[in-house]
């Protein structure tokens, strides 16, 4: 690890996933997946529910331990990291959940400012200024002093994105960020993710079935089923001219949703 423990930039792939296996009891959820993600790349993961895509995302953050293989994020092997190393990986990796998981007992501002204050030791006034700035960029500056229960789903997800961005991550992981939202709120959240990508240009992995979004933002898309990669291609090719019959049927199914 680099001095201070921060994720350091390597010339190779930013994320490297090597022959990863993961089971829950006798149920195999990830069955030998390998792929790389380059710096600045946006990868879209799709697949039927229960295919292992969300689990894979959580494994990349060390929230789930894998049974075999390696997950290397910014030079740190998450699968074998000590709890301090893991903490450093998490500090530079933002995770956005399907159900937002905001802290209900804190105001929106505090939700965003707490991590920089307590983890990085940033002065409270600086962290709050940063939080106001981030709320501005996700389009809800007026909600700073509200508690999360007063926000709509779309607003909650935007706060969750701002909360992750406050740690200035090098990698953002989105776990079905719009699937718990009403259709009209989905677009506002996708817009924010697009904006984050345009402004920060950070590496992203997005689990989503939003084809329009995937085609316009993602560099690559991947179909996962039964814990294995079915097809992997540049996003446009993947959705418009898939090679595999399984991918064709899957894309057809989500178009008809």
């Amino acid at each position: 690890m680099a001095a201070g423990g921060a994720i350091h930039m390597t010339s190779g792939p930013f994320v490297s996933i090597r022959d990863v296996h993961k089971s829950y009891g006798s149920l195999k959820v990830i069955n030998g997946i390998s792929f790389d993600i380059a710096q600045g790349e946006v990868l879209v993961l799709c697949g039927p529910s229960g295919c292992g895509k969300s689990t894979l995302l959580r494994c990349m953050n060390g929230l789930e331990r894998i049974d075999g293989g390696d997950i290397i994020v910014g030079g740190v092997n998450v699968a074998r990291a000590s709890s301090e190393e893991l903490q450093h990986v998490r500090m530079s990796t933002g995770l956005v959940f399907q159900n937002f998981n905001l802290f209900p007992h804190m105001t929106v501002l505090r939700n965003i400012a707490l991590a920089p204050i307590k983890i990085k030791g940033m002065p409270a006034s600086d962290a709050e200024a940063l939080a106001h700035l981030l709320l501005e960029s996700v389009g809800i500056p007026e909600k700073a002093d509200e508690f999360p229960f007063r926000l709509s789903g779309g607003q909650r997800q935007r706060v969750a994105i701002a909360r992750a961005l406050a740690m200035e991550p090098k990698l953002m992981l989105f776990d079905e960020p719009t699937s718990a939202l009403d259709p009209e709120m989905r677009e506002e959240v996708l817009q924010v993710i697009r904006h984050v990508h345009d402004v920060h240009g950070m590496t992203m992995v997005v689990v989503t079935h939003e084809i329009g979004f995937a085609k316009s933002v993602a560099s690559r898309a991947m179909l996962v089923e039964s814990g294995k990669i079915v097809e992997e291609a540049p996003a446009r090719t993947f959705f418009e001219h898939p090679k595999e019959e399984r991918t064709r049927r899957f894309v057809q199914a989500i178009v008809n949703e």
Partner: protein
Amino acid sequence: MSSYTFQFGILADYGPYLAGGLWHAWITSLPSIIFATVIGVGLASMQISHQRLLRTASILFVDLFRTLPVVVLLIWIHYVLPILSGVSFSPTTSSIIALSLNGAALACEAFRGGIEAIPNTQSQAAQSLGFSKIQVFRYITLPQAAFATLPALTNVHITIIKNVTVTVLIAVPEVMFRAQELTVQFFRPLELYTGAAVLYVALIWGYTVLMRSLEKLQKWQPI
């Protein structure tokens, strides 16, 4: 119906003396409530720790003091412990020790329930930001669990106050002790014990109102 004629005049004369027992009930129960709550938080955090030794120690403590009847515990601390250890306590101190130990076991269970009521996704969200396990407990789990625990904790505190009445056995001069004392003197048990009942109900009801106002301090709602 009995032919007993109530003469509440005794309460006009000795009511203030009887009510004075409430002060002793309060200075016995309040420290017990504080100790029980603080020790209870400690025991509950030991139980969710990853150190097996801490978990086991906490479980043993809780099982012991939850199963020991308060009367047995009180008599043991006041009469047996001094013989074994050579250290003896005043009736009030013995009572506070017994009620704190019993209350801590009950409070631990209340806190554990409150902590378990916080969804796991909360600590995952915090961990994903880079918070350490201790920080997650301090900033995310505990503040939410505190409010989730309040109603159950109020019950524990009420139990502690009610248990003060058993201290009559070692002559703490609280309300029941004084009611007994006056009964022996004036043979008016029905009036005196009715008076004692009213006084305890008033004390515990007042405490309940206080705790309910704490619940109102929660400005947020779970989502």
